[in-house]
């Protein structure tokens, strides 16, 4: 955690918790308590298929390369048999042809095997990297598309482990696993065919030995599946704890949490160690079992084959080739185990990823987006209407019961009220972080739900109390407001808000990396950057939710002075505990329990005897 990256996932999710006891999200049955979100049946398979589908042609080519490669490699023993049974007698008869053919054939096979191996490894890497690229992108985009509500419930550590360790385990499957599987299947088919062709009886025995092996594989698959799911959950818990500690390192140090954290982390780490060990032991059992079956089969075939050679019903060369093939038939069994390994762990991971991808954004993009009507005046402001809006958080209880409000274009409205009154909820509905459970929020008559994201963000922008900085330069951080802005426009925005001076005093000015040398930026300065960002975005409606809480008084005044020009003609909603904001407002709303209890011009309300007059008096006193 650097000084630059503000509060970790800090949020102000309305005032939902404290005030409504007895409705616990953490109590029972919340799927977010589990690591695996509810996944529709078959979603995992469908995900894998959809990842591979666009690469069908390349998967086919890759498989063909592998087929050819195996064909070439498996030709070896055949040539050995030919050399012994034909080449040697022919050579004795002064016919060097067959042996030369064997030599040339073997050389060709060797070269082809190497070349094909090269081509295959390169092609397979392409396929696997493309799948990973696709999957990483999907997770990322989907996580970004999911609503703020989702992010408040699904911890950042889990999201991170979805896109890191879980993707990594799919990568292992693709990089090594699938190759193993195809190699294994191909060599089984080839070798069985060869053995059957060499000798029906011996081949039959070899093929029959595959039955117990198959049973063993199924048994392993069942057991390992459980273990791997547990392992993936365990590592996710480790990651969550790790990230939380590193991001909160200052309080960890100041409150001497190191030892307690060591103990907590140790426990999670041990749990992971245990299931990890379980997984390895399952593998050990499988390998032992499969080798036992394989080696017994070899002994049986040799016994029978030797008897038949002794009887003269089988050529010695055929037995030699058969035995060589047999060794190869069972060689890939270990690799089958490795495949199952990576398959199990990838399946567990994919299931979680599929669960994440199956979450539908509760704030979806419109299917047929509408445009905002063209502005009527030269002012950027637009009219905002809350039309019978109802809203309750999933924890239950309505925060806003039947809320109606009209903000004329260009008006600056201050919203005040105690904690839990629904101020932030109002702001979040207007910024479309949430959708109302009933009613509509309209911007110039258009439902927010009908606006595509770029259109919506030209319309409404919100500046919150948490001023998170992304890694990159200060300029990058301001440019988030409008990436195509010129440097002049950006500096202009910073100047207007009073951030220019401190930015130019940084080691590299606007190009100072917020993470690097000397780039420490205080909470107040971060808020100024957030303001500059919002200003640059140039929205029709600007929402300020506690956006000046960390500024000192001159800073706040400077922002307010800037606001009087910046907000001119713009619609603005300002939420602040400090009533200094009111000085720039045209209108004040006092909220309580999700309703507006007072509404009027500031001077009018201050002069009155209502709640706002009380609040204002208390605030005046606090300025002493």
């Amino acid at each position, binding site marked *: 955690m650097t000084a630059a990256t503000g509060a970790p996932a800090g949020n102000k999710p309305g005032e939902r918790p404290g005030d409504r006891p007895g409705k616990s999200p953490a109590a029972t049955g919340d799927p977010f308590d589990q690591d695996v979100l509810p996944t529709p049946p078959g979603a995992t398979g469908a995900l894998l298929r959809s990842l591979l589908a666009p690469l069908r042609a390349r998967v086919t080519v890759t498989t063909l390369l592998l087929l050819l490669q195996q064909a070439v490699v498996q030709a070896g023993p055949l040539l050995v048999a030919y050399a012994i049974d034909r080449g040697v007698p022919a050579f004795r008869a002064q016919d060097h042809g067959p042996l030369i053919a064997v030599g040339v054939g073997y050389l060709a096979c060797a070269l082809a095997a*190497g070349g094909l191996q090269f081509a295959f490894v390169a092609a397979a890497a392409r396929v696997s990297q493309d799948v990973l690229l696709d999957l990483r992108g999907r997770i990322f985009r989907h996580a970004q598309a999911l609503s703020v509500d989702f992010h408040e419930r699904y911890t950042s550590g889990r999201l991170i482990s979805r896109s890191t360790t879980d993707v990594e385990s799919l990568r292992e499957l693709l990089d090594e696993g699938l190759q193993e599987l195809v190699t294994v299947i191909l060599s089984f088919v080839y070798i069985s065919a060869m053995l059957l062709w060499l000798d029906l009886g011996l081949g039959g025995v070899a093929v029959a030995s595959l039955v117990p092996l198959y049973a063993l594989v199924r048994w392993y698959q069942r057991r390992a599946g459980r273990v791997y799911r547990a392992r993936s959950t365990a590592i996710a818990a480790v990651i969550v704890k790790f990230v939380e500690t590193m991001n909160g390192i200052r309080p960890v140090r100041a409150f001497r949490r190191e030892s307690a954290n060591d103990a907590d982390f140790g426990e999670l780490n041990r749990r992971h160690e245990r299931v990890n060990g379980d997984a390895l032991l399952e593998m050990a059992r499988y390998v032992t079992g499969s080798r036992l079956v394989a080696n017994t089969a070899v002994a049986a075939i040799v016994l029978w084959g030797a008897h038949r050679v002794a009887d003269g019903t089988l050529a010695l060369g055929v037995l030699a080739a058969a035995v060589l093939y047999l060794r190869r038939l069972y060689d890939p069994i270990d690799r089958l185990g490795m495949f199952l390994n990576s398959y199990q762990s990838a399946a567990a991971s994919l299931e979680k990823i599929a669960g994440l991808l199956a979450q539908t954004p509760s704030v979806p993009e419109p299917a047929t987006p509408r445009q905002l009507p063209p502005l009527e005046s030269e002012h950027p402001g637009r009219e905002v209407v809350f039309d019978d809006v109802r809203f309750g958080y999933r924890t239950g209880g309505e925060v806003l019961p039947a809320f109606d409000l009209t903000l004329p274009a260009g008006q600056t409205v201050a919203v005040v009220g105690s904690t839990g009154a629904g101020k932030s909820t109002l702001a979040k509905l207007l910024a479309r972080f949430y959708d109302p459970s009933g009613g509509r929020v309209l911007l110039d008559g258009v439902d927010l739900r009908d606006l595509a994201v770029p259109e919506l963000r030209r319309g409404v922008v919100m500046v919150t109390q948490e001023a998170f900085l992304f890694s990159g330069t200060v300029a990058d951080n301001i440019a988030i407001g409008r990436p195509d802005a010129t440097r002049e426009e950006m500096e202009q925005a910073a100047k207007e808000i009073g951030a220019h001076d401190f930015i130019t005093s940084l080691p590299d000015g606007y190009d100072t990396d917020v993470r690097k040398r000397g780039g420490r930026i205080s909470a107040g300065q971060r808020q100024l950057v957030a303001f500059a960002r919002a200003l640059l975005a140039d929205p029709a409606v600007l929402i300020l939710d506690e956006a000046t809480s960390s500024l000192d008084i001159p800073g706040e005044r400077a922002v307010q002075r800037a606001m009087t020009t910046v907000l001119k003609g713009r619609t603005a909603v300002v939420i602040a505990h400090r009533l200094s904001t009111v000085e720039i407002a045209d209108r004040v709303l006092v909220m309580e329990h999700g309703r507006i209890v007072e509404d009027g011009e500031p001077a009018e309300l201050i002069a009155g005897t209502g709640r706002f007059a009380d609040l204002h008096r208390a605030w005046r006193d606090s300025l002493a």
Partner: protein
Amino acid sequence: MATTPASAQDRSAVRSLLRLWPYVRPARVRLFSAAFVAILASCVGLVIPLVLKWMVDGPIAGRDPAGVWLGALYLLLLGLAEALLFGLRRWLVARPLTHVEASMRAGLYRHLQRLPVAFHDRWASGQLLSRGTTDLMLLRQFLAFPLTFLLVNGVTIVVGVVIMLLQDWTLGLVVLVPAVPVMVTCLVFEKRYAQVARRAQDQVGDLTTVVEESVLGVRIIKGFGRHRSQARAFRDLSRTLRGTELRKARLLATIWGVIVTLPEVAIGAALVVGAVRVADGALSAGTLVAFLSTALALRWPVESIGFLLAMSQEAATATERFFEVMDEEVEHRTSEHTASGRPTSERTASEHTASGRTSEHTASGARAGAKDPQDTGLRFHHVRFRYPDAPPGSPPVLEDIDLHIRPGESMALVGATGSGKTTLTALVPRLYELTSGRITLDGKDITELSRQALRAKVAVAFEEPTLFSAAVRDNVLMGAKDTAGTADLERALAVAQAEFVHALPQGTDTQVGEQGLSLSGGQRQRLALARAVVGQPEFLVLDDPLSALDVHTEAAVEAALRQVLADTTALIVAHRPSTVLLADRVALLSGGRIAAVGTHHELLRTNAEYAHLMSGEMSGEEEGAR
């Protein structure tokens, strides 16, 4: 292929990997036995062709059914032995190696927790996380397979080659010819592979950072509708990673190609030569069969060397990355003279208790001995501070701080945004080391106390109220001694006006933080304040403790806090008059120095800068208020 494969590795990779020894040591017996067992198993595998040869040349040629049965029985026994030995190998290492992985992870975590805060300022947590997860998994895999099998396969190859040479030395030499080119290829490509592997691992770390930031900053991204550009940045990074991975794959493919082709060519040559010699009668058919099946049995050990070396290389990189962090110096235990007796590498657990005890003695001794009133309380003596990673030549954040907060006194710290107030507060609990000067608590230099003891005396409430994934109760009580109970908790909650927690679903047992209920900024700030006061610390440092509170709550907190501050030595960063008024006196921080000290009203009258900070009015400037 007579060389030991390990010598084909880059020297520095070996050196990196050797550093793992302290972690591997506890598992050494199991690991060595496993390697031994694996060698045994491989040798058993090599004996099987010999039995075959014996059968072909003996009982089969001699039409001896009993001999055939005996041969088959040998085969079966050897097969069973091989299977059980392989199983035994895995069983031997499974638990110990997961333990090695876990202990390295615990060690990393422990170390990271104790690295200077300045280190964490520099390192993105994504980079740290990728070291703690992916890299350690790589290392475990390395210890389980490549390490053992480089040895096992090396021995197998040597034994196999010896067997082949014994059977027929000409054929043996033919098979040995490609050893040199294979080794050279490996050497050349492994080096390149190592570089690319390192780049890939670093890029994974960068990608992790973007993921993390996009999750933590999701509200900003959504608020500005920037998820597309964020996704683009992510896509660019992941494309770069894909490019690196593909380069890696091409190198690997080359190694594979060489390793597959050359031995196969040699075997082909051996086959022709062998067949000619069988035809000449110089060699028995059984010997040729045995020879070839030995050569083919060696194919896997030889082929595997390519990817075993690649895995080792990646493991070496992972080790480097791991030690990059582990080599960072943890905070020096205590000051020079107390620390001189004990090495810095000493385990923290013992340090914790030992120094805790000693410092308690010394601290109480100092307090008893401190007669001079000038020495009591919290004092900054000519404190100068520059961030350790600041560019050389840049002005220090704090130039020369001289400040005395008397025992029981509370001092407000006022200064413009970015003047270094937060930095100053971070110096008291020694989150950063002073560049020069001293800070004393009751006359005792803070560097003479162990950090544990110091931080037990000084409680801090940070500007950013971070809650951990734990119950409310635990989050608050972490500021107190272990003996603190419900009474302390309630008192602290009352001071911070945080009684709202009783209305939470499970009251003070409700989980909050990353994995629990998310609270509003004001609620978190109040809990952070409760955490700071719960231990009734001698010294209290509050960084803008009331910024997120509404007016009513702020007034209530102030009233309660006044009681606490009455007999606590406190330093309070303040932005507003209401907070300043909590304190007895005010210090104005300006230009890296304490520009003025006095009561609020004094400074308002006498100091223009202070008046400006407190009222926001510039002298002579019209305010644009309506």
